[in-house]
């Protein structure tokens, strides 16, 4: 099968929509059929899905310094008390 196969090109376009939860019903149906019919498409899906999952679950979230929220709240309270006077 040619890499210019319209189904494979369409699959490539639809894949991110499926992974990102943006695909409609028809696009999801096409996606499921295509990963059954096309081994390269399935391989691409597995690769992209693995990257997305690794980002979601293993990339460290930077924790804010402990004094950040108290500092912000202090500034807001100051603004609040000034505007009341």
């Amino acid at each position, binding site marked *: 099968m040619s890499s210019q196969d319209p189904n494979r*090109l369409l699959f490539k376009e639809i894949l991110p929509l499926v992974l990102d939860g943006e695909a409609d019903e028809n696009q999801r149906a096409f996606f499921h059929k295509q990963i059954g019919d096309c081994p390269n498409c399935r*391989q*691409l899906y*597995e690769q992209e899905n693995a990257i997305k999952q690794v*980002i979601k679950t293993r990339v460290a979230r930077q*924790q*804010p310094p402990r004094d950040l929220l108290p500092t912000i709240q202090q500034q807001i309270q100051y603004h609040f008390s000034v505007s009341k006077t």
Partner: protein
Amino acid sequence: MTDSPTPVPRSEQENLQLFNREFVPHIDAMYNFAYKLTLDEDTAKDLVQDTYLKAFRFINSFTEGTNAKAWLFKILKNTFINDFRKKSKEPPKVDYQEVESIYNSEDIDENITIDLRSETVQDLIGDEVTNAINSLAVDFRTVIILCDLEGFTYEEMSKILDIPIGTVRSRLHRARTLLKHKLSEYARKMGYAGN
């Protein structure tokens, strides 16, 4: 964001309560986003602080019940662009034209031939993926963080970034292709690939 019904005027006390209820719970995500943009702890702290003060100043334009997190992220992104971008530790500037010509191929096999199996991806540790994301140009790492880490929809990203949904999609595609290349290089260096 601003495309919601006309906000109802609130008292200062109500605004303060709204601030604590709707905005404060997002501080962890805000700091993480600020850090990923600036790659510096002190600058990220200043950026979040400035963003929250702006959010309070403009709180009357926020409609309760609308998406507070997206509203805050938009203010943070604009504050970063206007006041902080020059100070941040930016990776070398990306030539968008070059990236486009290299990675805009319509050939599906372009992606598969990147030597990166899904099993290999699962072997990568968080630090390696974090480093690869941090090495992307800020516009590319921003879309990956908003979409894959924070779970914003394309429509929300379009509003946060002030770009059309089509641009969100094409930027995500390019960012992911670049990331895949970086992860593949990482895997090869670490001896993960080609097993």
